[in-house]
């Protein structure tokens, strides 16, 4: 399989759009999942932001230095695009969620993702961001700092707070059951 860096080189040197298409095909699933978590299950908006981020990635590919992985760089673009959408005030993300999440016992992959997205509604934006990057994607603290631009201490505290909130939610659910 051709590596990401080889595909990027093909796009830049040969203006090979098919290579970019392959690159995006490889990363689109996790990118869209990441944005679905950030938007707490707003699929249309998540896909719109993913499209914009990929288009921006195509336009800015020559600025990609290869210090971090392509997927990290793509996350960074998507996150900044997401922040921009929030700043326009067109969408509300800081939902103060009073609805309880429902654990889906006999769940398939789709239901499991819906459950995770519902859980995200109980977290604030930064918590959603760092917990998704950390727990869903398994990224290190250093990578999260690079993607989000947040200080290391802040990243760690957001992760700890998000984990506590989620564990408390799960514990509540178990008690109710």
């Amino acid at each position, binding site marked *: 399989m051709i590596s990401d860096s080889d595909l990027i080189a093909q796009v830049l040197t040969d203006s090979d*759009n098919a290579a*970019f*298409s392959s690159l*995006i*095909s490889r990363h*689109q*699933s*996790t990118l*869209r*999942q990441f944005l679905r*978590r950030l938007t707490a299950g707003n699929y249309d908006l998540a*896909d719109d932001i*993913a*499209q914009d981020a*990929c*288009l*921006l990635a*195509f*336009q*800015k590919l020559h*600025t990609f230095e290869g210090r971090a992985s392509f997927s990290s760089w793509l996350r*960074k*673009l998507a996150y*900044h695009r997401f922040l921009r959408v929030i700043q326009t005030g067109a969408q509300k993300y800081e939902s103060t969620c009073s609805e309880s999440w429902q654990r889906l016992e006999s769940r398939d*992959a*789709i239901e*499991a*993702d819906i*459950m*995770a997205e519902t*859980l995200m509604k109980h977290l604030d934006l930064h918590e959603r961001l760092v*917990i*998704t990057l950390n*727990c*869903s*994607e*398994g990224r290190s603290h250093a990578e999260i700092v690079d993607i989000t631009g947040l200080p290391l201490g802040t990243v760690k505290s957001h992760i700890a707070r998000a*984990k506590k909130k*989620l*564990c408390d939610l*799960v514990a509540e659910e178990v008690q109710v059951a």
Partner: protein
Amino acid sequence: MVRQNEFLESILKYHQNLVDSEFVEKLMLRIEMSFRIRQWVLSICSIIGMCFGMVGLSRLNLGELELMGGYWSQFAPLVGSSIMILVFLFFVWIFNEEFEKP
């Protein structure tokens, strides 16, 4: 603590692999469209530039065109304003397309 992390990872991991060729197709169409728009804008701006260059050259060489000066001056503010707006829009477009910070 380790079990807690494992549990959270198990419920938060991405469970589906979103296979969607439509997403990539739509993106490639947008890329093609933006490339075409860029070509169109650059071509139109080049043509406008060439037209003005030719007018400038002709005014230098042909005395008869001086006669049209009075007629032209009526429209000069309107044309000037339109050109300024077009130039401004061109720069807005260029900066949004090419120099937007990620």
